[in-house]
């Protein structure tokens, strides 16, 4: 919110420098996001009087002699503007002057003649017509005759001033105005606040036809209307136009300017309706009908619903409550009677309407944060005061006040000094507490250490001792807080839980294997699901949709991690990394049903992705087996199927009988669709694994026990087999283990294919380790191996090679 420094000074005698004020505001909780010096970059620009002017023949230039007082009584300055005349007072930038935009004035030759300075336009000095009459003309700014020759133009044009752009926190709607900030400034400077003038006189004239009705008191708890007549139309005084202009309003017409001025000064948005345009001279505040329309002042038709609050006359809508007036009741030059409106509209309703219609106005911004009924009253009084003072109109004796009776006046409660200090942890003396509260215009009655506090009507945010404590420390100063290290708190047990520690070790294991941890967004789009060729009826298609995504690319919550990993890999290929290993442990979001009725399952998932010439299915499998091993688990791998993985290079990962995920090679048709250069696609080796980490968490072993070796003799036997090429290693292991309960370990140690073995055959060699409750003698080992060989022959047609 923009606040003009000189405007603040109307209400408080500020005795510190503007930049000190910025620091003090900051300390009181009002961050000044930007401090703008209006005379920024303007130096040595002074009032000059043109003592003579003649055309420079053969050019478009004029030769001026300019009296700049102490900056030279006769400066020769050439100008191209043709609105300059002898005796004109003009802004003259003399040699050595500076202008906004980095312009520095030096003597320079123009069309063969030296010019010693420059005459300035309004635009070059950053001022417009609202600031000073004539600033918008094409040409040089002609100053009033009263301007003093030689005076710094910043003084002449009131540019020696500051604008503070202050951010107001959501709990302080009362500070959305010059007056609101002035109250704070007065409090921390310890100065009295000079209230604006609220006085005015009513005539005896009434307008009995006017009626004001509020049908929707829930959305409009207070509505004030006042009748003014014999409205004159003229331009507002320069000081008012300047203030409006600095704060971003264009001056329009005195009465309209007054409504905007009050919005800035008091923080109360106002509206003026041309009474002639109100059918039945009546105002009705009601909810709009579904489909009802209104054309707002910006000449756009707005389609409304029951959720929008409409100001109506007897037959039609004339204004969008709290947001913008209707075009049909706009103030025009012929307007002679006006109904002035000051109201409180419910903040969330204004916010909803403003958002739904995409219509953001200064009035709406104030209503959205909240206005208080005290401000509504002050706003109307101040507007009428200005109407009278500026001679805009006469104030009739028909005034309206419709209220839901919500405002209970000043809130009062008791609080002890001890309670206040118990929040802060320091002992702020009672006298300081009382002084601070009084400076903030709280009423305080002391009864021992009990304070009966009366809250100013505009401070709707203050309800209890904690709020009072904040007021106190804000003014007393946070530098009084004495850091203390939880002296009164009980000792507690801290740190990571078992599973949090496991997860961290799991990540560290993967790092040790060369996998970088990545972080991907939890949202993506249906395109990601299409990318991995999920069938239409795949459960992963049941994804939670965001009602208000910022982009279509991030419109659903992910149900599967692999697309994110594929994107990470594709991005790294694009940046010319020839190989990479990545992992992420994060959630996928699985709704129990759609539309969502309860919090969905957030399933922690481990996703691993690798690519590069050295990678293969087995490099990834090695990592996953190692991952299982470091966690005391055993994974079993079976041939699997997955929409995005190579049909021949895809395994299901099974742990304790449950499928927990899969790994395999990314399908080529997906690789082909990746957004990377064609040349990089040909020999891409991308492997992915996705495991349900939450199941692993449930299987982690919390206890470990040492098992002593039973001291019995073990034995090892190698067995070589010729079997069908399609026979899986795991099938042979299973048969061996089924055939011999003493076979505690079966490990493939060699495999090869050769024509000599026969078509479609391969040779596999396993080492079997036998152990048991008894010593394994050679006889036992041999006969167990024999049994295994027979079983392999029976079940898989595998023949033992001798």
């Amino acid at each position: 919110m923009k606040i003009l420094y000189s405007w603040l000074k109307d209400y408080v005698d500020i005795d510190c420098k503007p930049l000190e004020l910025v620091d003090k505001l900051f300390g009181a909780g009002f961050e000044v996001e930007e401090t703008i010096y209006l005379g920024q970059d303007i130096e040595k620009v002074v009032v000059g009087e043109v003592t003579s002017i003649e055309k420079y023949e053969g050019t478009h230039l004029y030769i001026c002699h300019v009296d700049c007082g102490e900056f030279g009584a006769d400066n020769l300055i050439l100008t191209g503007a043709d609105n300059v005349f002898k005796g004109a007072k003009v802004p003259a930038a003399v040699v050595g002057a500076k202008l906004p935009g980095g312009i520095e004035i030096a003597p320079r030759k123009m069309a063969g003649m030296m010019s010693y300075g420059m005459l300035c336009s309004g635009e070059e000095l950053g001022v417009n017509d609202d600031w000073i009459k004539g600033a918008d003309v094409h040409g040089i700014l002609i100053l009033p005759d009263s301007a003093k020759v030689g005076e710094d133009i910043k003084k002449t044009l009131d540019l020696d001033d500051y604008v503070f752009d202050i951010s107001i926190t959501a709990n302080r709607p009362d500070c959305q105005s010059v007056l609101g900030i002035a109250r704070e400034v007065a409090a921390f400077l310890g100065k009295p606040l000079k209230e604006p003038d609220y006085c005015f006189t009513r005539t005896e004239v009434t307008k009995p036809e006017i009626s004001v009705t509020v049908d929707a008191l829930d959305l409009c708890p207070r509505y004030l209307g006042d009748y003014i007549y014999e409205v004159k139309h003229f331009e507002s005084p320069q000081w008012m136009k300047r203030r409006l202009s600095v704060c971003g309003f264009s001056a329009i017409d005195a009465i309209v300017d007054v409504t905007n001025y009050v919005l800035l000064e008091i923080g109360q948005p106002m509206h003026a309706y041309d009474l002639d345009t109100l059918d039945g001279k009546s105002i009705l505040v009601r909810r709009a009908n579904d489909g009802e329309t209104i054309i707002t002042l910006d000449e756009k038709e707005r389609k409304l619903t029951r959720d929008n609050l409409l100001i109506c006359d007897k037959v039609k809508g004339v204004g969008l409550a709290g947001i913008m007036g209707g075009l049909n009741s706009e103030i025009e030059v012929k307007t002679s009677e006006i109904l002035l409106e000051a109201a409180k509209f419910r903040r969330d309703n204004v916010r909803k309407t403003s958002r739904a219609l995409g219509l953001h106005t200064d009035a709406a911004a104030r209503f959205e944060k909240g206005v208080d009924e005290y401000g509504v009253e002050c706003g109307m009084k101040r507007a009428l005061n200005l109407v009278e003072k500026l001679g805009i109109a006469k104030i009739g004796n028909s005034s309206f006040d419709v209220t839901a009776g919500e405002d209970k006046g000043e809130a009062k409660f008791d609080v002890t000094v001890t309670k206040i200090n118990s929040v802060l942890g320091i002992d702020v003396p009672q006298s300081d507490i009382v002084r601070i509260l009084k400076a903030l215009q709280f009423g305080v009655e002391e009864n021992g250490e009990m304070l009966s506090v009366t809250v100013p009507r505009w401070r709707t945010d203050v309800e209890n001792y904690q709020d009072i404590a904040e007021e106190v420390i804000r003014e007393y100063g946070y530098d009084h807080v004495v850091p203390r290290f939880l002296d009164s708190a009980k000792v507690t047990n801290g740190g990571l839980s078992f599973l949090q520690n496991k997860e961290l070790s799991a990540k560290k294991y993967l790092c040790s294997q060369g996998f970088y941890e990545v972080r991907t967004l939890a949202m993506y789009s249906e395109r990601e699901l299409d990318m991995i060729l999920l069938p239409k009826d795949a459960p992963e298609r049941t994804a939670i949709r965001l009602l208000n995504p910022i982009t279509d690319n991030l419109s659903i919550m992910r149900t599967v991690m692999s697309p994110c990993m594929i994107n990470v890999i594709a991005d790294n290929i694009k940046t010319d990394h020839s190989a990479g290993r990545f992992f992420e442990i994060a959630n996928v979001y699985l709704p129990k049903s759609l539309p969502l009725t309860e919090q969905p399952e957030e399933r922690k998932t481990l996703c691993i992705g690798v690519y590069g010439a050295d990678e293969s299915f087995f490099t990834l499998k090695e990592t996953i087996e190692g991952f299982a091993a470091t966690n005391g688990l055993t994974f079993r791998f079976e041939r699997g199927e997955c929409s995005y993985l190579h049909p021949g290079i895809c395994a299901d990962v099974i742990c304790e009988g449950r499928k927990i995920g899969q790994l395999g090679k990314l399908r080529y048709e997906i690789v082909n669709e990746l957004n990377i250069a064609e040349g990089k696609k040909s020999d891409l080796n991308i492997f992915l694994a996705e495991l349900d980490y939450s199941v692993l968490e449930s299987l982690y072993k919390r206890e470990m026990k040492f098992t002593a070796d039973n001291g019995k003799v073990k034995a090892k036997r190698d067995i070589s087999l010729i079997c069908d090429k399609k026979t899986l290693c795991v099938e042979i292991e299973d048969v061996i283990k089924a055939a011999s309960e003493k076979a505690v370990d079966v490990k493939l140690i060699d495999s090869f294919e050769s024509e000599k073995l026969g078509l479609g055959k391969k040779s596999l060699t396993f080492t079997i380790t036998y152990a048991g409750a008894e010593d394994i003698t050679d006889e036992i080992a041999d006969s167990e191996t024999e049994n295994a060989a027979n079983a392999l022959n029976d079940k898989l047609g595998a023949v033992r090679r001798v």
Partner: protein
Amino acid sequence: MKDFSDIKSQVKQVLEEVKDGVQLSDFWQKYLGKTGVISGLMKEMKSVPPEEKPTFGKAVNEVRVWAQELYNSKQSEIKEFELKKRYEREAVDVTMPALKRAPANLHPITLITQQMISVFAGMGFEVLEYPEIEDDDHNFTRLNVLKDHPSRDMQDTFWLTEDLLLRTHTSPGQIRTMDAEKPPIKVLVPGKVFRSDSDATHSPMFMQMEGLVVDKGITLCDLQGMLDRFVQQMFGSGTKTRLRPSYFPFTEPSVEVDVSCFECGGKGCSLCKGTGWIEVLGGGVVNKKVLENCNIDPEVYSGLAFGIGVERITMLKYGIPNMGMFFANDLDFLKQFKA
């Protein structure tokens, strides 16, 4: 008396020419072995007169001992030589790369998260994790962010239904903790949060860490005292904090916490934009309404709460200029954070 000088000089000469283990073993067979020249001398004993036999035998033995010693010294000389040869042969270019793959590292956000956790764990904070998809009640209403209040606009929310949303902060963890545990409470809630915002310093998803302490006699002074310890461990022992007023619906008073700039020590630099201070987190005294919403008696207990943006701390600590880098996952970026 035979002095075997011819044999001795022969032995000496032959041994001198021995260059390796094979030749040495040939030498041994030829001179010192059972059928060797020196053993052969004993056969001459037969032709030696009996009275000279002892002397002869002794002399032959002396030759044997002499030759054996010579042999031993040659043997160790050759062993040493061959070992040296082997070492030379086996020498490698130690500057050649060792591992095919260097170990990787955690994501910088995880590194900083863990670093922060370990600081607070040392103060007795338990680490709890809660759902990322929340309801209005936990994310807003019970945190005193009421339905019609403009403070709802402080956080641009991603909505899933009228009631369910992507949590906009980790503060719902305060409610969930206080529903489940009674004071004394000291918890840390790290986690992903989501806001409808995206630019150089904002990402629609980022990481926050909530802290909550509820016990008897907790005040604003404890907040600053505790955060002083935290920032000193994160940013260096000379780091100071500064509190300044702010507003969060769930704390009262609410503060923004700045740390003295760890780059310039408070003198003013580009990192702190010349102010000497860097905003790092927000916090305050737990609003009594929040305690009441969780059935904790504010007349008995009070609390402090704070929320830290992990990306922000990470950007500050590691000098990362753009939020987007955390989610781009480029190897050139990821590889830099070896801890």
